[in-house]
């Protein structure tokens, strides 16, 4: 039970991190039609810039400043690079962001080196947020913070006690992601600029003829999307690893999220992020393979079949490919995506 709850929370927190990235990607895509291949690179930049700022000022100012810096970089890129290739069509736009991902990766390695950095979260986030204690006599207990050692040790050998801590960084990630989700939603629906953005999503010409500066709005959206990715980077970098390959590991997954959720659908991206986060987290925890399945069904496999690696592969080993399998299945059975409404 406690395993289920903790895995569920881990999955949700990872899914929310994915959503922090895919929301920016989706906003940029639905507004400008640009698939930002370098989105995960902005995530990586956020982690590295956050690392450097936190060296100077500490973690909390870095959490605020780094996304702004990354957002400014994104706006700069939009204004001086992306806008120039707009006239050549979407393929050229995709290409220039593809080139940017190369350049950012090399620049990051140039400035910060090729090995992983030690980007530690602040003291307050280093311990567990809460601990679930499963006591075979007293049942399930909930405790804020770390559990004292004696509570996790049974005095009697017959009593089984399992303590499952939930890391504070994960909890923090969830809080920030939810805050971000709410504020973006409020910004889009309740403010004037949000309404202009929404209008520019579908009818850019009409908005422009009403006197709004649509290119500036585009720049703002691109910068904001990059900034959100940067914010995710500061949190993700301090929770997981800050290393040059972090863009590649998360990059292809967020593309899967956007396609599975439906191109340009924010709520679809939210749903898909959570699903993929949960699938990956739960799959890692299980050690079942085709071989154990056959054994449970009572099938007798020959020794040669039992030794083949396909049968021996456990669910935790195939976890990395599950999002892509989901993508393929989705395209075969529902090409629009979960909540997509356009058949692009």
């Amino acid at each position, binding site marked *: 039970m406690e395993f289920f709850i903790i895995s569920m929370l881990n999955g949700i927190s990872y899914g929310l991190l994915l959503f922090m990235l895919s929301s920016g990607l989706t906003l940029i*895509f639905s507004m400008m*039609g640009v*698939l930002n291949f370098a989105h995960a690179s902005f995530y990586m930049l956020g982690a590295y810039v956050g690392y450097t700022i936190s060296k100077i000022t500490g973690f909390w100012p870095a959490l605020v400043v780094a996304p702004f810096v990354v957002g400014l970089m994104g706006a700069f890129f939009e204004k001086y*690079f992306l806008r*120039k*290739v707009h006239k*050549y069509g*979407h*393929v*050229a736009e*995709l*290409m*220039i962001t*593809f*080139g*940017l991902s*190369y*350049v950012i*990766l*090399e*620049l990051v*390695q*140039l*400035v910060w*080196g*090729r090995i992983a950095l030690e980007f530690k979260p602040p003291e307050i986030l280093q311990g567990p947020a809460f601990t679930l204690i499963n006591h075979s006599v007293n049942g399930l207990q909930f405790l804020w913070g770390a559990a004292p050692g004696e509570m996790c040790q049974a005095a009697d050998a017959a009593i089984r006690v399992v303590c499952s801590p939930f890391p504070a960084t994960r909890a923090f990630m969830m809080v920030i992601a939810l805050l971000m989700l709410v504020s973006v939603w409020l910004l889009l629906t309740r403010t004037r600029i949000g309404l202009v953005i929404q209008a520019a999503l579908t009818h850019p010409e009409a908005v422009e003829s009403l006197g709004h500066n649509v290119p500036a709005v585009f720049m703002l959206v691109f910068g904001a999307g990059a900034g959100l990715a940067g914010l995710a980077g500061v949190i993700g970098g301090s929770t997981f690893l800050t290393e040059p390959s972090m863009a*590649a590991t998360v990059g*292809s997954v967020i*593309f*899967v999220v*956007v*396609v599975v959720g439906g*191109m340009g659908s924010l709520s679809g991206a939210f749903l898909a992020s959570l699903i993929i986060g949960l699938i990956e987290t739960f799959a890692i925890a299980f050690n079942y393979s085709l071989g154990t399945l056959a054994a449970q069904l009572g099938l007798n496999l020959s020794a040669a079949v039992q030794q*083949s*690696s*396909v049968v021996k*592969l456990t669910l935790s*080993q*195939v976890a*990395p*490919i599950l*999002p*892509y*399998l989901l*993508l*393929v299945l989705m*395209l*075969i059975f529902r*090409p629009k995506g979960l909540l997509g409404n356009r058949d*692009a």
Partner: protein
Amino acid sequence: MKASYEFKPINVGRWLIWGIFAVLLLVAPQLFTSSLAITILSQIGIAIIACLSFNILLGQGGMLSFGHAVYTGLGAYLAIHALNAIGNGWYLPVSMVPIVGGIAGMCFAVLFGFVSTKKSGSTFAMITLGLAELVFAMSLMIPEFFGGEGGVSSNRMVGKPFMGISFGPPIQVYYLIAVYTFVATALMFAFTRTPLGRMLNAVRDNPERVEFVGYNTQLVRYFAFVIAGFFAGISGGLAALNFEIVTAEVVGAARSGAYLLFTFLGGATFFFGPILGAVMMVLAFVLFSEFTKAWLLYLGLIFLFMVMYAPGGVAALIMMNLRIASFGHLGKVFGAYLAMAGAGIVAFLGASAMVEMIYHLQLTTGEGSTLSYLGTVLDAKKASSWFGAGFVLATGLFFFEVVRRQYMQQWDEIQEEIEKEIKRREAI
């Protein structure tokens, strides 16, 4: 309307160009005889097929694929397994092994293409990316087929020598590659002239209209995808023969990215563009990467600027200047080209000196702070070398910008004159 009395039994220009191409393939290893040169030439042949097959998707079909290495790579795997099977008594000439790779690439394209060609544009790009990740992740999970970390190795001398050809010496493999390159290039060019090839262009330019005419755009994309997969597989099979080892990185994202980058740099809008791209790719990977550690950074920056200022790639630049030359105006801009090249080189020297100094500081800290750069010694920890490099860069940029403005003006004038000239000729 063409006059009916015009009689042209042979298209002289075309025969000439293909003849030159064949002679180049034949003569190149006689001119450059070192073993490094033979290796590079073999790789260029392989890359030409791969990039041309990629351009069936990108240039002719408007499909941006991030997973082309899947088809070259899986073709290479099947080919190397076929080679091993020949060693175990299968009857198949070694020279046919690339065909096995081609058929494998085609079969996988039939399978994966069904999913990916359901969409076009950006969605297609993401699906190919996802499939590429899927195949790459699988390659590490199934060591029986993919050989795990070490890859699958083989020996290409397993067949009986036929007329003295055992494929032992690299030069024999080169000529096999050359034959395949020539035939595959000719076939792919012929494909652009078939109704399907023409329809593919139409699907790229205006899919909606094609649907109205009554064609199924998805099917056209699918057929093109399968054909591209076939040629990609042939290139993979040749690579397997050439290196005698296939590792998991041949299906990796970096390989797919390289095909995309260099096909684009060569020029996707012209048929011969990818050939230039393939030559650049092999030279960059083999030679340029030896020269500087920062080559990926330079490559990325060059790519960015090409997308912005020359989206047609090198091929389009060549064709634009050929057009000017054919109207006899090249002399006017020639001076500007020389000046721009000079200023560009100066700016590049300054910028690259800075990049090399940063790389030196970051990567080779053990060897002190001095590095030799093009014969001069720079101290990466002294402000003077940074100021020097910065000054050189600024000077180069300044002169480049001055010349560029003049050049743009000249260029526009020349284009106007050419337009007038064309109208005048039409009037005659």
